[in-house]
């Protein structure tokens, strides 16, 4: 599962804000097992736990001339490396007073 956010400024510059991966235990995003089962037990579980929320906060600088920007946040689940399911896409506009 991938959380991505970008900001598109009023001058057309696209600034990546964040990319977070929530992964199945022991697999990379291509679905390949990168660790033995005995090693998997030792690593941090990067998936989302049932009934729980994760909160993320990001601060990213934008180009100095930016007056406004559209921030797009997208959460996708990749059930297989070639298939993306977009869970939700949210767009927020931010404005900078001169």
């Amino acid at each position: 599962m991938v959380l991505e956010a970008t900001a598109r400024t009023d001058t057309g510059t696209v600034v990546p804000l964040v990319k977070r991966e929530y992964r199945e235990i022991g697999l990379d995003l291509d679905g390949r097992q990168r660790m033995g089962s005995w090693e998997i037990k030792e690593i941090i579980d990067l998936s989302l736990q049932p009934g729980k929320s994760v909160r993320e906060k990001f601060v990213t600088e934008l180009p100095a001339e930016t007056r406004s920007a559209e921030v797009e946040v997208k959460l996708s689940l990749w059930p297989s490396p070639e298939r993306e399911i977009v869970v939700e896409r949210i767009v927020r506009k931010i404005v900078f007073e001169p």
Partner: protein
Amino acid sequence: MKTFILILILLLLPLAARGEYKTLGELVRAYDDKPCQACHRKIHDEWRQSAHSRSMVESLGITRDFIVAIGRDWHKPVTREQLMRCMECHAPQMEEASEEVTQEVAGLVVTAVEGADEKARAGALASLGKLSVTCIVCHNTRAVIEQNAGGAAEKGVFHGPAGNPSPAHGTRKSAALASPLFCGQCHRTYTPPDREIVFCSSLYESYQDGYRAGGGTQRCQDCHIQAKGRGHRMPGSHDPELVQEGLVLEASARGIRVQPKKWLPAAVLEVSVSNRAGHRTPDG
């Protein structure tokens, strides 16, 4: 002592009475879903759309990696016991396969992924497509969860929550198939005879330890079968509707200026991702 030995023999008898199929064709015929289709067409059509009907062919990449690693990394032969680490869930009928059939299936998996030509790959894929979690796997082979205590289900007798009589085969009413533990037979970590646990899926563990322990009351069957008439499609992580039900994204953004005196514009983004599913996400 004699009584004890007699009881031990009786307990072991159903487990030892499994067949051993000498050819892949025999094994496929023994678990064929087509006879079920004649009377249970709607259910069969739903199952056809499910991941259960493609359980073997949709995981070929990682199965191939495992088969190659058995010899390359662990210096062991490809045996049924080794292959069951994958097949225990992806094709449980392989438990009844001879070692010859095991070798054939292992070869087909490797060919399907890295075969020299398209025709060979397609042929291997077609053969492997006949192995899956068929009707017989759930309603007979795996229908009894506690086989150590009660013995395996009798061949030809199909278990279900209703247990309605049928002129075509024996039936038995069983609450087991409506239990989360039934699904947990596969959708959990697998412990093979050598105790080297396979971590492909840990859904059932997080269902019990995370969801149920946190007060959740739904069963696997409630969301994946009964809700919205999903039936034997049993959608999961490949189904956009179910994925969107289970995950919630919230986001807010505001602009600030940073670096005193320079006062550069910056975006502050706050995001919340909530998992409403009854298990960890993602998982196998």
